């Protein structure tokens, strides 16, 4: 048995225990807290909410004194009860308010009796259109379009959007009464049409591919011609011509750069049951999509997500020469939103016609849908001009910014285990700064002249920063660790240390109390 503890040993023991506690509390605990705490930089969530509110309020662009376009919708018979019509009206107004171009125009249903305002050309579209099915609107309803611009003439934007919206969903679709509300609630048509364009409007890369099908009759005249260097250099020259035309067109006000490349590829057809042969027999849209599968051309989505912010968006354009044998179909073409366009040659390949089609496809892919203007004698399609779709792209970018920052706010709030690097805070601040710069410029009266490019740049930058923030690679969620796992790790680690420390401290305290007594 050990003897009583000497005074020196007692002092030493106390110093040792207290020293260990000092190291544990002063150094150990702070270090442990620092290394285990998830770093979350504070984000300006309230500022993001302000952006959302400003966008919903129309960015200060709505002007009640702007020109109104009033259109009548004719129906052969009255159908719905007033309450149902009111519901449809409210739903339409809600859709338009949430539409990306809502700061540019407004859609409102009013009763036909309120006809004091002058009418414009849209009347012709309404009256000459197919009458509404009776299960849609009531007889006395009209649609009024507000365009908050300083232009004296009606903005083409509103006409185009109106046409796309109304034509698709009210005039030409036949819906059952039960699904009517749902039908007009579906905004995907107009939204996807508008999102067809390159949202960021920074740089576009056009990739032209000449795809030649080789079959057993590869010695056919057309195939031989297509395989010749002359034809292929002609192909490259035409593609370059398209590129030059686009670069010098008003699209250049919409983009920072347009680059291009050309390629020649070959598709080998081994037998009559090939995918190509089947497509030739049944060139329906469903079958056409199979072409892309077999080509395995890298489809790049250009929608709200821009995968690589440092690379330009790529639009693919493919001119396909099918096997000549048995091919009697005329040339036709199709586009795939956010991917590109395909032209399939007919009996006689015509590079000039193909390039003309490609040019139209570029516009189609980068701008909202063309609208039909009916001036009473004939109808024709007109595309929005560059400054108009620059405005639309601006609004889309601003909306994209708000949506992205709002999503970031929701994620950061709901996922408390997610790290938020300081870099993300900087990106969010930059996005908000660019947003305000864009909004300030968009409210200027000269928005429709040269300055809309500046606006678009700021809006695109805002969207770009927002996307960089939400996709920051260091903003990862900490892995979930079950609580029992934490106990299993900490207990053997800390137990052998903390138990003697507590025992030592407890003894010191008991001794001190005894001494007091």
């Amino acid at each position: 048995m050990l003897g009583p503890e000497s005074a020196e040993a007692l002092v030493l023991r106390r110093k040792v225990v207290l020293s260990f506690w000092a190291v544990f509390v002063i150094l150990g605990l702070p270090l442990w807290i620092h290394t285990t705490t998830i770093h979350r930089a504070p984000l300006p969530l309230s500022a993001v909410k302000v952006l959302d509110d400003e966008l919903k309020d129309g960015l200060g662009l709505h002007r009640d004194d702007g020109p109104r376009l009033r259109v009548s919708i004719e129906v052969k018979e009255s159908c719905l009860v007033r309450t149902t019509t009111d519901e449809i009206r409210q739903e339409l107004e809600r859709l338009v308010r949430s539409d990306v171009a809502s700061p540019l125009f407004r859609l409102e249903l009013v009763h036909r009796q309120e006809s004091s305002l002058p009418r414009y050309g849209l009347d012709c579209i309404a009256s000459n259109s197919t009458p509404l099915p009776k299960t849609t609107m009531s007889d006395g309803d009209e649609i009024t379009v507000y365009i908050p611009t300083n232009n004296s003439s009606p903005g083409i934007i509103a006409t185009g959007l109106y046409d796309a919206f109304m034509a698709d969903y009210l005039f030409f679709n036949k819906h059952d009464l039960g699904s009517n509300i749902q039908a007009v609630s579906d905004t995907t048509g107009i939204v996807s049409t508008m999102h067809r364009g390159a949202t960021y409007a920074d740089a576009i890369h056009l990739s032209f591919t000449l795809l030649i099908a080789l079959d057993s009759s590869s010695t056919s005249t057309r195939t031989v011609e297509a395989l010749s260097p002359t034809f292929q250099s002609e192909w490259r020259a035409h593609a370059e011509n398209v590129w030059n035309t686009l670069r010098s067109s008003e699209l250049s006000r919409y983009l920072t750069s347009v680059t291009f490349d050309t390629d020649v590829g070959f598709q080998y057809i081994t037998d009559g049951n090939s995918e190509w042969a089947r497509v030739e027999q049944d060139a329906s849209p469903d079958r056409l999509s199979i072409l892309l599968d077999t080509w395995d051309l890298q489809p790049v989505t250009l929608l709200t997500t821009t995968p690589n912010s440092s690379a330009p968006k790529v639009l693919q354009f493919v001119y396909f020469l099918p096997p000549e044998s048995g091919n009697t179909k005329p040339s036709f073409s199709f586009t795939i939103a956010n991917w590109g366009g395909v032209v399939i040659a007919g009996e006689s390949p015509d590079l000039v016609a193909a390039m003309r089609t490609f040019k139209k496809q570029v516009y189609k892919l980068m701008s909202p849908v063309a609208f039909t203007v009916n001036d009473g004698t004939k109808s024709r399609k007109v595309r929005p001009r560059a400054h108009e779709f620059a405005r639309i792209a601006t609004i889309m970018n601003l909306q994209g910014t708000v949506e992205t920052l709002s999503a970031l706010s929701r994620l950061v709030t709901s996922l408390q285990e997610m790290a938020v690097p300081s870099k993300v805070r900087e990106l969010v601040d930059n996005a908000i700064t660019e947003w305000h710069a864009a909004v300030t410029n968009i409210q200027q009266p000269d928005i429709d002249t040269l300055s809309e490019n500046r606006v678009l740049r700021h809006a695109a930058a805002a969207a770009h920063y927002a996307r960089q923030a939400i996709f920051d690679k260091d903003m990862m969620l900490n892995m979930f660790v079950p609580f029992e796992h934490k106990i299993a790790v900490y207990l053997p680690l800390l137990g052998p240390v903390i138990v003697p420390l507590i025992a030592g401290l407890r003894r010191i305290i008991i001794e001190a109390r005894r001494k007091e007594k």
Partner: protein
Amino acid sequence: MNELLKVLSLAFAACLALSSVGVHAQQQMVLDNVTLNQFLSDQLAAREGATGNHANNWAVLVSTSRFWFNYRHLANVLSMYRTVKRLGIPDSQIILMLADDVACNPRNAFPGTVYNNADRALDLYSNNIEVDYRGYEVTVDTLLRVLTDKVDPTTTPRSKRLLTDENSNIFIYLTGHGGNEFLKFQDAEEVSAFDLADAFAQMWETKRYHEILFMIDTCQANTMYSKFYSPNVLAVGSSELDESSYSHHADSDVGVAVIDRFTYYNLEFLERVDKGSELTMKDLIESYDPVKIHSHAGVRTDLYKRNLSEVRITDFFGNVQAVEIDEDDDD
């Protein structure tokens, strides 16, 4: 000694108290139905119900196992890979992650091949497969980064990124060794059901999918989708809690099991599907037979708004491109 015993007793009591606190906190993390429905409504309202149109298809196929004796997991994934490719999804839209240590394994009696059937009729490893992540690249961190696209865009090639958007239907297939709410990755780490659920939540917020079909073939697989809370996710698993998933058969020459039961019977169904097939997810689910699979396959549909009888198999296993025919313009 008495003091030491007292301190130890106190420490033990403290541990018990902490454990009970932890268990209670975990129980509270489970969303009850009412809360979940409200959350789903809020999520959809935040996006104003706009979930895009189905316009393209992607697949993420992951074998989380390595080593020779897990041959069947590699065969599972390669079988699914072959199926989705056959139905039209191009390599550029498939992310294939596997350890890839089987085909050229010294134990492989048929070097350079992987079979999913003892008759060895089909070599899954030949014919143009593109493995995006192989070997030790297949980690939990990699998977989560691929799903959420939190990768370095300057160093990660496009082919290794999931370039989806709000119009993309994604088929996510995982196979390997799993347990109650976890999945083992290459014997080194685990991914939990919570991690996957939060990854899907991030994907939803960043508009990275239109719909997801999540399919998992592991032991206690159904627990892996129990924590999901994002909209438009349809989940299918091979076995219930406390249930194992089993292999189907072994190849005596290869020496190991070559396919798992759940995947085997999925493939048996999918072999009847072609690009124009009208078969639906309801048909697939109804084809699951616990007697054949030797476990109870589960499906979770509460997060998925469409009726399974209206969801074609090709909505997830095939490929869709929205095509617009050009009209003559009077420009």
